[in-house]
């Protein structure tokens, strides 16, 4: 089907495009920009005047809760939320139940995703069997089955020997390793170790629980030359470590969750369990450093770290609640808020949501070049709305941003040239 997206401001950071132009889609691919390809007769014309047309967003970390926790959410419910949020590619970490440590699980997720038809779901295989951090997972088989990398699935490998071997083995099959930098022992706690945790009597997680592990892992990368991506940094010092390693040419990258760009330890005051996240929200200085890391390029991607919960999961005293924020609905809006507040240029934000993560994945996604997959997001940057539970599409409504005025309204989302979301009314 041929579609014309007319008169929008096209931002395609991969090709340094930022201009008002028509975008032509044919056969699920980008067919042209500005000038109509020969013989193009659109079946559908999308009027995008005043709107921004950019590649569909790529979210490096989204828990879809399926298989295993269907009472929280499903692939169908969360891919629908993704489409409504302008996200066309989701990366699913391996900590499902059962974990993604055998090809059958990858195949099962692929079938469910295809049936839903709302977004592309890429899977990360487990680094170790059952994610236990003891024996290696069958990474070669996982790769053949289609996983795009391997990961500790948010359960850091405590044993350095196992980790080193896992990295070596992954490198053998040219797999990027996605790590969650948190020391298994120092990471026991509920809040950033500091004045707020002290006042609230919450067990603290020092920044060194993250930086210590990153420093060790960087040394392993230096020895082995394996590609490592660090997910969800939380501290200023971590950004420094990554920036230095990248300057030295180590094959490493890192992302940050969008909530760490907006919230700090102060948001825990009143024991707000919606702000219970892992890694913990840290200080103001850390938040500023994470934002600066996005500007400088030390951090290559913004992700939602989506973790939908049923309401019971967070209806308990702080320490008894399950960590995590439902983030698919707010990934674009919270990122745009950084632009609105003058902290980041719009093109940088879009880069960190599209070709930045695509580059980490090593996939030909996240750009609007001729012949590229027509994953496109069209949004109105001027619209602003209060976030309310009733307008969240995710099954999980656990968000501390409820009540925030958020900019940006997704008008259309295209997945491989097909409309998967369009705003009504």
């Amino acid at each position: 089907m041929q579609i014309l997206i007319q008169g929008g401001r096209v931002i395609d950071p991969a090709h340094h495009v930022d201009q008002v132009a028509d975008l032509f889609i044919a056969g699920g691919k980008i067919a042209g920009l500005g000038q109509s390809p020969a013989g193009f007769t659109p079946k559908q014309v999308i009027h995008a005047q005043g709107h921004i047309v950019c590649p569909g967003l790529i979210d490096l970390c989204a828990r879809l809760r399926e298989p295993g926790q269907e009472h929280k959410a499903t692939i169908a419910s969360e891919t629908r939320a993704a489409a409504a949020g302008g996200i066309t590619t989701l990366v699913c970490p391996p900590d499902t139940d059962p974990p993604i440590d055998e090809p059958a699980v990858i195949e099962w997720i692929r079938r469910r995703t295809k049936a839903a038809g709302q977004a592309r779901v890429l899977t990360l295989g487990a680094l170790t069997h059952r994610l236990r951090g003891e024996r290696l997972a069958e990474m070669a088989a996982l790769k053949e089955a289609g996983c795009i990398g391997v990961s500790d699935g948010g359960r850091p490998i405590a044993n350095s020997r196992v980790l080193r071997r896992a990295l070596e083995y992954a490198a053998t099959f040219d797999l990027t390793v996605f790590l969650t930098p948190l020391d298994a022992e120092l990471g026991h706690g509920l809040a950033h170790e500091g004045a707020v945790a002290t006042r609230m009597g919450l067990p603290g997680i020092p920044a060194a629980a993250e930086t210590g592990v990153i420093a060790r892992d960087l040394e392993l990368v230096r020895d082995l030359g394996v590609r490592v991506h660090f997910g969800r940094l939380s501290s200023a010092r971590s950004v420094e470590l990554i920036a230095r390693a990248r300057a030295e040419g180590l094959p490493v990258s890192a992302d940050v969750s969008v909530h760490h760009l907006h919230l700090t330890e102060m948001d825990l005051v009143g024991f707000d369990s919606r702000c219970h996240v892992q890694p913990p929200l840290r200080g103001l200085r850390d938040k500023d450093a994470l934002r600066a890391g996005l500007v400088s390029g030390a951090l290559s991607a913004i992700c939602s770290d989506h973790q939908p919960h049923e309401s019971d999961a967070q209806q308990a005293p702080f320490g008894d609640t399950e960590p995590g924020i439902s983030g698919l609905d707010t990934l674009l809006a919270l990122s745009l808020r950084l632009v609105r507040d003058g902290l980041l240029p719009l093109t940088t934000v879009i880069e960190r949501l599209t070709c930045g993560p695509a580059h980490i994945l090593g996939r030909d996604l996240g750009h609007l070049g001729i012949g590229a997959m027509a994953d496109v997001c069209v949004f109105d940057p001027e619209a602003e709305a209060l976030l309310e539970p009733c307008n969240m599409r995710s099954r999980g409504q656990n968000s501390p941003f409820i009540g925030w005025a958020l900019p940006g309204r997704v008008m259309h989302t295209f997945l491989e040239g097909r409309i998967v979301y369009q705003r009504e009314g």
Partner: protein
Amino acid sequence: MTGTHIQLDPQGRLRHFLTIEGLTHRHLTDILDTAESLRGVAERRVKKLPTLHGKTIVNLFFEASTRTRTTFELAAKRLSADVLTLNIATSSAVKGESLLDTLRNIEAMQCDMFVVRHQQSGAAEFMARHVKPHIAVLNAGDGRHAHPTQAMLDVFTIRRHKPDFPNLRVAIVGDILHSRVARSLIHALSILGTGDIRVIAPRTLLPAQVENLGVRVFHRMAEGLCDVDVVVMLRLQRERMEGALLPSEQEFFQQYGLTEERLALAHPDAIVMHPAPINRGVEIDSRVADGPHSVILEQVTNGIAVRMAIMSITLGHHARSAGEEA
């Protein structure tokens, strides 16, 4: 900071009692003055006031406790309330019932006040946010966060001996890291304008940036105890040795135990306090615990009057006037 909005009504009166933080000097002196007027009740032949007659108070203890639970029970009974104590550590929570369900079930029994102890910081505040509006919640200890009634009985005891808070030096010694008693006491002493609040502990038992609470930090008893008027010893839990926070009880006692020799560094009239139960020979020597400076048992007695005061105030009956009627 935490909880102020929820424990006060729009007029700024206490409707729950969850934490000392955010209360005013007036709130604290009201409680202390009320407790003072109630202290005599225990000496009467009939140890009862009709203040809370017809009210039902439920003690919800998710964590083991003897002293706090019994003094809360006695306080409620002396105010003529009906009291029910549930040790949930050994009942339904074990069967997997959520805190909210426990709360709803007991609420359905038409009670007026919950006294809550729970192992999680913020549990009392969580309950206060979810109870029906007519029910008051008293925090009897939540995780490491707060133990406000203990702090009030501590400052009550201090005030009876040493009422001049601005010129007072207080040292709190031991496991500050895990202590809700220490946190609440530091807030209460600050609000009352205490001139010098010190904590003495090894670094492993001090929470990060504890000085932000308004205390001076000492690592050696010889320096920290110098000229203090009040020494508050904290209980040391045995499991701290397993958590690699301390090498042994012996070394802790050697470095931080309160002995007669160490107490001699303090002001000659210094009082020695402890929230109890005490570990003799671990944090305090028996000769000090039982000695002339010790007011440890007085704290227990005062605990009843202070809890009576807090119960009456939060349930909206000013006990002073009730006391005059009786």
